[in-house]
């Protein structure tokens, strides 16, 4: 099913934000929509968006490639993205990351055997006063988890098994 068939209301609402002669502006919100279910954007999804906006698939792909929140490959159902940028690192983020990796048994860039969780590191998420922190990116969008301890983080990760069961 194409994006328009699947989400007619959303596509229309997105397009209404921009002048019709500049509908290309809708490429970013449409990409978020296309990424919603699988957690990454398929070739068909890019073709779809190109058709809606009268631009080539290559142009869509070049936008996908530029931004870190878009993915063109499958990973774990949830990306657990730990911030270890300077301000967080000054408050123990590196040590937190190391311990968390040890506890879950995967390294940064790896996915758990059940395919649920991939670990990634990210740069500042505007939550430096609440370090250590990470965000989860999955079927239920992006969620922040702040002022973390290892115990709290393990609870969050365990909870991902059950979260997002009713995908909209």
């Amino acid at each position: 099913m194409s994006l328009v068939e699947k989400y007619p209301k959303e596509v229309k609402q997105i397009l209404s934000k921009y002048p019709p002669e500049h509908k290309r502006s809708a490429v970013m919100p449409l990409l978020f929509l296309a990424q919603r279910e699988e957690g990454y954007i398929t070739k068909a999804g890019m073709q779809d968006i190109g058709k809606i906006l009268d631009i080539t698939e290559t142009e869509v792909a070049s936008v996908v490639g530029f931004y870190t929140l878009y993915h063109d490959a499958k990973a774990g159902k949830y990306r657990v993205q730990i911030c270890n940028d300077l301000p967080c690192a000054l408050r123990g983020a590196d040590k937190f990351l190391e311990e968390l990796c040890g506890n879950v048994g995967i390294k940064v860039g790896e996915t758990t055997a059940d395919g649920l969780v991939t670990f990634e590191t990210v740069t500042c998420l505007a939550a430096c006063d609440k370090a250590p922190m990470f965000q989860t990116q999955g079927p239920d969008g992006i969620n922040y988890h702040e002022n973390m301890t290892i115990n709290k983080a393990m609870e969050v990760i365990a909870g991902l098994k059950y979260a997002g069961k009713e995908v909209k």
Partner: protein
Amino acid sequence: MAHVVLRHRDIPNLNQFDVYKKNGGFSAFKNAVKKMQPTEVTDVVKNSGLRGRGGAGFPTGMKWSFIDNKNWPHYVVANADESEPGTFKDREIMESNPFQFLEGLALCSYAVAANVAYIYLRGEFWQLAAFLDEKIAEMEEAGLLGNKILGTDYSLKIYTHLGAGAYICGEETALLESLEGKRGQPRVRPPFPPTFGLYGKPTIINNVETFANVPMILANGADWYKSMGTADSSGVKVFSLSGRVRRPGNYELPFGATFRELIYGEKNGAGVQDARQVKALMPAGASSSLIVVNGDDKILDTPMDYASVRTLGSELGSASVIVIDDTVSIDWVINKTIHFFKHESCGKCTPCREGTYWMQNIVHRIHGGDGKQGDVDLLLNVAKQMQGKCLCALGDFSAMAVVTGIERFKGDFDKVVKV
């Protein structure tokens, strides 16, 4: 003193429409659309001395007066990309005092006769964008936004737009490219956005905090605003305080308050963690020249305003103060900042793309314990070579901590390299 921007800290539930309204909300905007000429609004902002809070400190009223009135339509864009490491103030403003920000955005739109405004938020703020959409809908319902506002001929629509994880999209022309649906790479300037902005049309871009000041200035007058702060930097600033302090967070202080007040004030940072000494400060997030403190009282007593911070060989920028204490080695700091800039360089121009690549290679070697003395000089050289040669400020930003880190904290580097 009562807060001006972080007013929600004095007034509970200020993010609710009725509460905001009861506390004087929307009166400035109502008064402006009904009784003031657009240029009069700009004049008040000009006279207040308000300077942009996104980093460059450009006079806001003056920027608005540059809007090209021979080319239509006009646009206004709020920069809510907030991605400078150490900066987390716009998020709090939008979460807790959203109407004041939206009212400021509406006042600017009226002042430059724009009928459409966009709020560009970093992609991670998607829930915040949905929250703002609700607030915008509430204002439309009350007749404060939409068609023919309050029975006048003025109409305004405000839309949110999400970025997708690219620091460079905080740079205003990259932001516009991104908003147009392209890769977020900076444009060559001039022309500047007030003449050539979104879709090539005259556009005013300001930071969220800049907008949040505007309703208070219109309501209380330019002189009231100027009575706070210093001659060079009027009014109040929200300082994002992070790093090795006991109470990290946002603190609103008048310009001219000292680093000591911010870091050691009981209601502010409450001192350094484990009672250590301040070694260095980065007043503008990762894009800072490092200020040497080493416990020096005189430095900590420097007023935080644009001019005074410059006398320390740094810039106030977005006022995201990162505190580094004497347990931290500066080569480690540089390793972090370079990693950030290497990751965020958009790749459009060679000096920045190659420079950040080489700086990362060399700093990894040094920080990893495999560096030789010559590597430190090499790193300094690469950084200096970049300065002034890049298309946008990111390139210069990336070199700043490297150059000042090596020049001002040489000993930390000597310690980790082999002779």
